[in-house]
């Protein structure tokens, strides 16, 4: 492994790790706020218990999100100093606003987690909402920074010097809206199905309905609605990519040859040597239609991109397929849930349905990771699209390979501990509800 590859892998690992905690940190506050709201309105103890149970789990995720995020703000410089030297002043606007959002979030979190019975109930509830709103804003802001890497604007390069810098224009680059919208929906999908899946699993194991059913109602309903919406936003993202990054789109679709009536390629094994795709389902004109709304318009293929400016095709294509397939899976399960709720259908409580829900638990996050691989690997070999190559940005310090292994070790241990703690939290919750059961009935 050379240092560049190690640096890329370390970045991918760190971001891929952080995004899980970031999603939970953005969305769970809203779930808690809903449950908390119902408790305050109806006085039903079970909702208070649910809110507290969730907040205990979330505290673990928050700290992990916070430390992994802190690492990222250093890693950008540790790994890509030449990029940050130029990029920092240009795409810094969202980061400086994000700093504020994080700070507010950390403050509100202190109030929320430690404020039970200390403050007026509605003030306490409000601090929970602030946690969610500031988390979501910070997510949107940081995605705007990433969008700028895909669609650099807000500066000119004159004689190799970055001048006429306009941080505001850089923040509102062409890609920020499509990416931020898609990311927010994705966070709702991923967190909704993950949380719902865990509660479905516990319910299936015969644990108390009291708490798990309301938990599922909140998380799955929101997750399912987001799953209905996300294909639209994804479609919009894809059109956006087609305009701003034709190479990425071509890699996503494994579309090698520039042609009219471009086919939509589903599945298949792309062969970059011979520029063909084997074993794929091809829908004639499908790609042209999806991008331009008619079946004939020409779509740029990889053959028109210089060889040294093409992203790796296979990884991007597979990841894109995984994301879309997952979207379809979650869409179907989500529909089943929504219809079942609406009609009060019996299958909602059946073992097979609960098993299904438990099985799709990780899929939202799989789609999130796959989607980020599409965005980031699809941008290669550029770190700043069309302007700076990743290879030119990497730190001159040798031995990044060791750093990669170190980080891998850290993230694996953190993931393991967080997993174990979560299981223990759930068990403790179970013991708690089981003990209280006789008194309640």
């Amino acid at each position, binding site marked *: 492994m050379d240092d560049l590859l190690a640096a890329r892998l370390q970045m991918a690992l760190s971001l891929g790790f952080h995004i899980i905690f970031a999603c939970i940190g953005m969305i769970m506050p809203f779930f808690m706020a809903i449950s908390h709201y119902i408790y305050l309105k109806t006085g039903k103890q079970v909702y208070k218990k649910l809110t507290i149970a969730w907040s205990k789990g979330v*505290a*673990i995720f*928050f*700290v*992990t999100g*916070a*430390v992994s*995020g*802190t*690492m990222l*703000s*250093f890693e950008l*410089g*540790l790994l890509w*100093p*030449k990029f*940050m*030297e*130029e990029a*920092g*002043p*240009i795409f*810094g*606007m969202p*980061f*400086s*606003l*994000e*700093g*504020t959002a*994080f*700070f*507010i979030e*950390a*403050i*509100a*979190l*202190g*109030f929320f987690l*430690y*404020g039970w019975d*200390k403050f007026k109930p509605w003030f306490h509830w409000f601090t929970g909402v602030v946690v969610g709103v500031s988390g979501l804003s910070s997510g949107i802001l940081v995605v705007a920074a990433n969008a700028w890497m895909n669609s650099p604007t807000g500066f000119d390069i004159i004689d190799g010097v970055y*001048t006429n*810098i306009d*941080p*505001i224009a850089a923040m509102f680059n062409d890609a920020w809206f499509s990416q931020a919208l898609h990311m927010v929906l994705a966070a709702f999908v991923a967190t909704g199905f993950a949380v719902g899946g865990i509660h479905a699993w516990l319910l299936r194991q015969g644990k108390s309905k009291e708490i798990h059913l309301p938990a599922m109602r909140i998380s799955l309903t929101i997750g399912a609605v987001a799953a209905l919406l996300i294909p639209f936003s994804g479609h919009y993202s894809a059109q956006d990519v087609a305009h701003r990054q034709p190479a990425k789109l071509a890699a996503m679709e494994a579309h090698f040859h520039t042609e009219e009536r471009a086919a939509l390629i589903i599945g298949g094994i792309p062969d970059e040597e011979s520029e063909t795709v084997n074993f794929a389902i091809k829908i004639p004109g499908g790609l042209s239609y999806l991008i331009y709304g008619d079946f004939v318009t020409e779509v740029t293929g990889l053959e028109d991109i210089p060889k040294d400016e093409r992203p790796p095709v296979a990884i991007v294509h597979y990841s894109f397929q995984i994301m879309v397939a997952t979207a379809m899976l979650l869409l179907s399960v989500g529909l089943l849930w929504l219809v079942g709720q609406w009609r009060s259908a019996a299958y909602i409580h059946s073992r097979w349905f609960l098993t299904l829900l438990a099985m799709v638990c990780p899929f939202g996050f799989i789609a999130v990771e796959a989607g980020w691989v599409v965005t980031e690997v699809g941008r290669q070999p550029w770190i700043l699209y069309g302007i700076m190559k990743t290879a030119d940005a990497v*730190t*001159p*310090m*040798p*031995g990044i390979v060791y*750093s990669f292994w*170190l980080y891998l070790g*850290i993230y694996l241990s*953190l993931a393991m*501990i967080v997993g174990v703690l979560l299981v*223990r*939290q759930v*068990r*403790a919750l179970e013991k708690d509800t089981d003990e209280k059961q006789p008194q309640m009935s």
Partner: protein
Amino acid sequence: MVEIVVAFLYLSILMYLLFGGADFGAGIIELFTSNDKKDRTRQLTYQAIGPIWEANHMWLIIAIVILFVGFPTIYTTVSIFLHIPVSLLLLGIIARGTAFIFRHYDPEKGKIQELYNSIFVYSSFLSPLFLGILAGTVISGRIDREASSFVDAYLYPWLGLFPLSVGLFTVAICGYLAAVFLIGEADSEEDQKTFRKKAIRMNILTVVAGGVVFVAAYMEGIPLLEGLLENTLSILALILASISLPLTWKFLLKNLHILARIMAGFQVSMILFALFYSIHPSIMIFKDGTMSLNEAAAGLATMNALGIALLIGSVFIIPSLIYLIYSFQKR
């Protein structure tokens, strides 16, 4: 606007040293507490810093963001030449934050707790140590931008007596701040007495460690003392810090917690000011030159945007932070 950004940069560094430092210090105190009292210290620490610890560490994020947006050359130079100590600092920060929360939220209270505890205390020691090492290296002139070998470029700058002495000095400051802070949080007369003793001991340690910094500087030929003495304001700050020393002791012994805290904070601020000001307008000193904030500053448009963002941010952050600290104060 550049002045505003610079002011926020120094403010966030100072706040991180004071609040983040007291936070690290709580772990350092735990490290140096006899076993039979550890449990009480732990409980007190959790009560005192639980709600605000995350906010305390946000100052670091603000400082870093200001650096990479407003002063990218400083950020990248540190990132390149001090890659290894920065990574070690990160390791400490991660280990500490997670161990602190995990030990509280793990329902299992068996052996694993001991593991969390030892991770917490050792990383509480190591993080400020590396923070100080970084600060020491940056002002030492040990970084050689032209170095060609790995050892000269990436190891030599920070592996030295002077950086190490600044590291230990930082650790002592953190422990001192924490002890003074925790006295006010303690419930019983007995706990207060323990922390008072610790505070005084830590204070002596800080003074000694400060002396060692000067000795180390002298041995390595770093003109630290000369820089301080050439500068009227630096001398003044040091004199003020020295005068406040006996005052702090007096407040500590008289049980005036708030005043003692203010005094301790004041001392540390003065020391930091004296140090920064003595090399002003430089902020980094290399083997073959210096870098000032002005030289490293990004363009005007960026500085304006950053300054406005910081001003807007502080309108939200400062009142809510004060309210948070106030709300979770004891009594």
